[in-house]
């Protein structure tokens, strides 16, 4: 009997990617593009799972994508919270300012800063100054990350599925 590889480790790797993107100040602006960072974590979880699949294993299925994406979202929320707390309590404002300074420098060298509307720049600087963490914001991660991780998992399945996918259910719609 062929056993599929475990889903926990690929989901954890995807969750770590998701959490790092969401938890590091300024890098988390990637999520302003329809939660791209969160979806990328779900997508990568499917990639890591697919990498572990052997030729003799059953092919990747859509349900694998859903499970991996949602699970990566849960891990991503936990990793994101841990990183946010580390940045907030252990390293304080200095780390956030240093990261912010680096990203600002990168934006400046790429010419993005000049094209950025003053309102956006102000919002970024406000984010750098305002270091408060609300429990509400941390809880939101547990709703948003599994939801968008799941979408990333479905996209990952669409990309990584083999050509010989199992047949679809006979009546796919109402």
């Amino acid at each position, binding site marked *: 009997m062929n056993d599929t590889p475990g889903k926990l480790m690929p989901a954890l790797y995807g969750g770590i990617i998701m959490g790092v993107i969401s938890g590091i100040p300024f890098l988390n602006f990637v999520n302003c593009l329809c939660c791209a960072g969160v979806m990328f974590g779900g997508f990568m979880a499917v990639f890591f799972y697919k990498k572990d699949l052997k030729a003799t294993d059953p092919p990747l299925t*859509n349900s694998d994508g859903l499970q991996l994406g949602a699970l990566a979202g849960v891990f991503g929320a936990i990793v994101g919270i841990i990183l946010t707390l580390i940045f907030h309590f252990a390293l304080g404002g200095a780390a956030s300012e240093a990261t912010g300074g680096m990203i600002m420098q990168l934006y400046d060298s790429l010419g993005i800063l000049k094209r950025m509307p003053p309102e956006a720049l102000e919002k970024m600087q406000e984010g750098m100054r305002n270091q408060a963490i609300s429990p509400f914001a941390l809880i939101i991660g547990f709703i948003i990350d599994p939801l968008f991780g799941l979408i990333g998992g479905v996209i990952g399945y669409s990309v990584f599925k083999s050509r010989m996918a199992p047949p679809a259910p006979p009546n796919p719609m109402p």
Partner: protein
Amino acid sequence: MHYARITYTIVALGAGLWCALILAAPLLATSRALAPVADLIYAFFRPLCHQLMSRSFLVAGHPLAVCVRCSSVYFGFLVGTLAFPLLRKLPLLRAEGLVLLGCACAPMALDVALSCAGLYETTNAMRAATGAWFGLIMPFVFIPAAVEGIHQLFLIRHHHPIQ
């Protein structure tokens, strides 16, 4: 059990609730008593969107909970979801998921890339159009995938539990 029907209903209700929240924020903000609820909704969507005033649709003088591009994506997704049972048999919309995904993403990705590269200045109308296009097509990728995934999940759950 009709997994397809249940999955579709959950997706449609979820999209409806999501859009209702986006629309409710500016409407609630107009009332002094309900303004804290509006603040809560704005806070909920803050990790998802930059919420810049100049890049948001205004309702009753207040911005929607997300920007022009995001709200177009979400409202487009809702419209696409509602239209899904009527349009799903169109040959164009029955293409491979990856092809549809590419078609959905291409205009928005091009708009963002060209704008970031400084080759042209995008407008709110362009953000809305490319976002809505993406949102309208996404249900035709997501719903069949979700239906198939849920079907497989219930079919094989006893044989292949999460390890």
